[in-house]
């Protein structure tokens, strides 16, 4: 029944035997206990489960774990520095109050990091368009937009 999978998660090699129907989000949360990756919907819209797969933002609840065989995965737990210091994008979210309940936040930060990689100087419109895969119900996005702008600037500097 089980199939073997192996991948690198936040720099560490992991291997497990899983049921084929295990979603990547489920694998991260339940097998690896990396619960920062959240699940907010079942149709792939909310983006709370956004992680990086081989350097690109994807929705971990919209992937079979097996599809990530051999991949390099980064989750929200792998973003801050080893000593715990926040990444400039995380710090910008705190500075601008870009989060309230915190549930969409990990996905939002992961999406923002990918956005800035593509567009190092994003305009407000580009940020709003670039976050089309993430829902936030608390902030009205106003402060998220400001945070991403500040985070982008800090990442260059």
């Amino acid at each position: 029944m089980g199939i073997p999978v192996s991948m690198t998660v936040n720099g560490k090699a992991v291997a497990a035997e899983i049921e084929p129907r295990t979603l990547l989000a489920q694998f991260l949360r339940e097998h690896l206990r990396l619960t920062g990756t959240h699940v907010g919907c079942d149709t792939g819209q909310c983006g709370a489960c956004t992680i990086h797969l081989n350097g690109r933002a994807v929705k971990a609840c919209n992937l079979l774990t097996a599809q990530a065989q051999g991949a390099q995965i980064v989750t929200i737990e792998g973003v801050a520095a080893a000593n715990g210091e926040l990444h400039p994008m995380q710090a910008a979210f705190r500075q601008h109050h870009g989060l309230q309940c915190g549930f969409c936040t990990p996905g939002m930060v992961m999406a923002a990091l990918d956005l800035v990689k593509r567009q190092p100087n994003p305009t407000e419109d580009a940020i709003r368009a670039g976050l089309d895969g993430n829902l936030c119900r608390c902030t009205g996005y106003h402060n998220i937009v400001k945070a991403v702008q500040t985070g982008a600037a800090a990442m260059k500097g």
Partner: protein
Amino acid sequence: MNAPVIGTRVERKEDYRFLTGSGTYTDDVALPGQTCAYFLRSQHAHAKINRIDISKAKTAPGVIEVFTGADLPGSVGGLPCGWLITDVNGQPMKEPKHPLLAQGKVRYVGDHVAVVIAETLNQAKDACELIEVDYEVLPAVVNVADARKPGAAQVHDIAPDNTCYVWALGDKTAVDKAFAQAAHVTKLDFINNRLIPNAIEPRAAVASYSRGDDSYTLYVTSQNPHVARLLMTAFVLGLPEHKLRVIAPDVGGGFGSKIFLYAEETVLTWASKQVNRPIKWTAERSESFVSDAHGRDHLTSAELALDKNGGFLALRVHTTANMGAYLSTFASCIPTILYATLLAGQYTTPAIYCEVTAVFTNTAPVDAYRGAGRPEASYVIERLVSTAAREMKIPDADIRRRNFIKEFPYQTPVALCYDTGDYEATLTEALKLADVAGFEARRKEAAARGKLRGLGYSAYIEACGLAPSNVAGSLGARAGLFEAGEVRVHPTGKVTVFTGSHSHGQGHETTFAQVVADRLGLGVDDVDIVHGDTGRILFGMGTYGSRSIAVGGTAIVKALDKIVAKGKRIAAHLLEAPDADIEFKDGKFTVAGTDRQVPFAQVALSAYVPHHYPLDKLEPGLNESAVYDPTNFTFPAGSHICEVEVDPDTGATKIVNFTAVDDFGKTINPMIVEGQVHGGLAQGIGQALLEACVYDRETGQLLTGTYLDYAVPRADDLPSFKVTTRETPCTHNPLGVKGCGEAGAIGAPAAVINAIVDALAHLGIRDIEMPATPQRVWQALQSAKKERIAT
């Protein structure tokens, strides 16, 4: 000393854990031996259950137990409603039993039929499909407008005509008289669209039972764990209250939907003892859509009577409100106590009459959703006012100014007494910030591009800080509405505060710490706020109705007063001075008029190491609690101005500017306050432009059951907002605060629709139903075109 932090933009203490993925939400809890639950839900809106066969499910792989309504002992009650409404005839509202698992009938799509408990979630779901239910499908009544029609299906035998109650407020005779003398009457019919709250964290629960001490622990996504415990133990399961600990850990947004006691966590708690293992249930989003309590869903007919100068004479409102299939925890008070009482708005309308008919339908229960009753009231008033202004050719700002309440306290004709406010000030500031003066030029510029611009106003008021318990009680509340707080000063002078308020995004860990830090002269990092655990906190009524800082914050202030009073007595002993001579300021106790002083931390240490201590007069330790019951509601108010651009070719509306000037009294942390406003505006704009919960009118199937059909606003649906505040301090709490959580959702819908109507009014369009989707706007334009051709 530490600089004062009240009124400053302190970065949030809770953010580090949320930003690093180290928060603990209910679904993150994993207990040893944990099992998974999955609920079988009705696919029918209304059906008789002839038979349920669980035999195949019970023997499916991994299944531990399967329970149906028949397994619940007779001693288990239904989910209670916390507010008794008495109808126009003095009779109590109809309260049908709200079973945890269906008893012979299902009454909405999503109703709970059975629960499967298995080793894994997939096994529970697989087994659920093996349960055979023999349904006899019955006709359903779905739409609020159909509920009382002759021949409509009956949801409950005990509620003829599907009527829960007919309730009224105000002086009908005075209103009728005023209408007879009016120079102008403006009449509108409204649908206040049904909404699905959609906190991004789905509801979840983990229940466990300890046979060793016969006690239960429940982790649950709740805005008010103590209320959940009280209702669950005393009214449903009949358990001793002290044997259940309810923990609401990090909660990912609530907006009202997590106030209520639901079947799922209640069944889990009961079942955890039956299977003697922990059980987890987390809603899939599709389950949230069908089973979270929905919001709004009013059908209203409203009329405003005016004199020839645009002065308001009277307001008459008839509303039918949908309760859904059962009464959720606070359902009955939303369209009554939290709605009709707000119909004076910011105006001196001398006579108001409102009649509300609450009906049952075969839909999910409807209860409080951000604003809860107040957005509906504000929408009625502000749409009428702008429509009257247009009809009487009076500018929007002028008609409002002409009717603003200017003297306080002000007793409205609908029971409330406003303590303070300055509506002129918020409106004037909003006009400036929105650059209303430049609007005509912008309208012309847009017209040159083939686009229609409009400007919409909304001057809302809300009653927050729920509530004086005795007033609420006299209106039917079955619980108190105070709040508890406890301040525990540790021997080193660091402080832990326990509050009955619950933060699920509001940032209490920071704002409450700011209050405490300032009072005790400490740094924000010297203070930790604990909430959401009945095992650690004295008591609590929780967070909703923008009540946390006004009620919960005041309870903490009262406890702080006691800390300072006791501290003074300890300091007096240490300084060998009379108690009355001790002053406390900037973290130091000082003998008045001298430089003899002792710092707060030293007093704290003395309290715990009472070697030199007035043991004959004082107990050691420095820990105080207080329970605060407010003397009045608070009345946040403000002016919102929305500017839209409509594309007449597609009907698409774009919000190009949104300005909100709000008066929340004193603000503790302006950054957090602005964030609350932004979020409220997004939900208010969502209601106006995007969101609609739609059921099939015949079958009762939910047609908007995923994010593919229910439009929650995304980043590019919204503009950046212009937000600022004016302060008239609340007169009856020590912090002068009013609350800010719901304002955006209350003010925004009318501003948006008024703006769209303003953009289209020259074409003869006078109303657009919410949500004003592109298709609706386009259709309105088409009908207007046809009418113009016909005439």
